[in-house]
């Protein structure tokens, strides 16, 4: 971790990530509902919208997978809060020990030096844990980005299929445009997520 960034800063970063996750979860829920409506619409459109119906089913599966992925991400950020809290306590203890060391003399000072050495090692272990968690988080975000790219492809394909929807073509076109737009929102949230994560990964 960057010097001066601090455990408090790490906590604020986790909150920024969590807020983006909440936004993606809400959007994934919206896509799920939209996909259900699209499936009904495709059924009404009949033979002309068979392909659109298949894609709507796939989009619904995509929304479910995305929600599950976000649940895992959220659990990971909660795990990070526990680790960062440990770091916060360690940091606060170190501050107190440093102040005590400045005033201590002789044997007392030696004892505090020993304490500080032990605490430096404990701090290092906390930092290693944070680095490992961040690595996993980065990987998860990359996997999610791939999943969302698939969603984006599905939405584009739905748009093409909508053109063959006969009398329902304009309704199907509207629905597929909504899909495209909503998945675009998720992509933007993921970009923000990556940005927050990258800030830490390079810190």
């Amino acid at each position, binding site marked *: 971790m960057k010097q001066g960034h*601090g*455990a*408090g800063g790490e*906590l*604020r970063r986790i*909150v920024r990530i*969590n*807020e983006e996750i*909440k936004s993606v979860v809400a959007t994934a829920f919206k896509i799920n509902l939209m996909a259900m409506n699209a499936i009904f619409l495709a059924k009404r459109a009949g033979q002309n919208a068979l392909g659109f119906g298949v894609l709507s089913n796939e989009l619904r599966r995509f929304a479910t997978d995305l929600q599950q992925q976000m649940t895992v991400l*959220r659990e990971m*950020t*909660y795990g990070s*809060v*526990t680790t960062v*809290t440990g770091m*916060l*306590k360690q*940091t*606060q203890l170190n501050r107190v020990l440093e102040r005590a060391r400045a005033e201590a003399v002789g044997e007392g000072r030696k004892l505090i030096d020993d304490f500080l050495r032990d605490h430096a090692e404990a701090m290092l272990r906390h930092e290693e844990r944070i680095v490992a968690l961040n690595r996993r988080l980065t990987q998860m975000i990359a996997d999610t980005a791939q999943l969302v790219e698939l969603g984006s492809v599905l939405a584009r394909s739905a748009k093409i299929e909508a053109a063959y929807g006969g009398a329902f073509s304009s309704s199907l076109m509207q629905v597929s445009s909504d899909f495209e737009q909503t998945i675009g929102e998720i992509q933007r949230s993921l970009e923000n997520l990556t940005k927050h994560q990258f800030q830490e990964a390079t810190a």
Partner: protein
Amino acid sequence: MKTAQVIYEDGSHKWYAIVRDASRPNYLIDTNEYLVVAGDDAILLDPGGSEVFPAVFSALSSAFDPRRVSKLFASHQDPDIISSLSMWLEFNPEIKCYLSWLWASFVPHFGGDADTFVSIPDGGMDIIVGSQRLQAIPAHYLHSSGNFNLYDPKAKILFSGDIGAALLPPGEDGLFVENFDRHIRHAEGFHRRWMGSERAKRDWCARVSQLDIEMMCPQHGAIYRGDDVRRFIDWFAQLEVGVLKS
């Protein structure tokens, strides 16, 4: 992990109860934290001890953006109430902590400086959260000598701190009191021992009887609703307190 459950909602005015940490070790008393949200502003009531900070912070974050929590309210000075203060300050150094003037120079041992604390005078005060005006209601000597409840006149909710607290056994730890007679057995020993003053108790019962309360939310145990609020006040009024044995 704890969960954040909405117990009151009217537009952007909400009360969340942050409760029931299944992963909490047995040597720590379970605590309830409450978050009052009004628009873009929020106050966290009795934020809890440093040991439960990760659980409280995570549960709160799942429901609300913790960057918008601008105030903490500490009913009194105990470690299970406010020892997480230093963690909250690391997260947001601008956060303000409202507590009795009596503890204003004691609680900084947990963290914070002169800018952190807003001292509540003995008679209480209003605390503005967003567009809502909450009231710090005196509850001194119940159990702490500088002790406050927080009343929300619009939601008709009284956060009662340790008053109404119950130490619930596993399996009887629902969010709300469902059977008053059964529930109150788990509150009796606590109130007899922790609440130290008959006079203070009578004063409090008279004071809160004047308030229109639909929910009374203690810091431990279950929430009293509807008629159970009146039942609790009546029960407490006749309970002998300040005794060693129940």
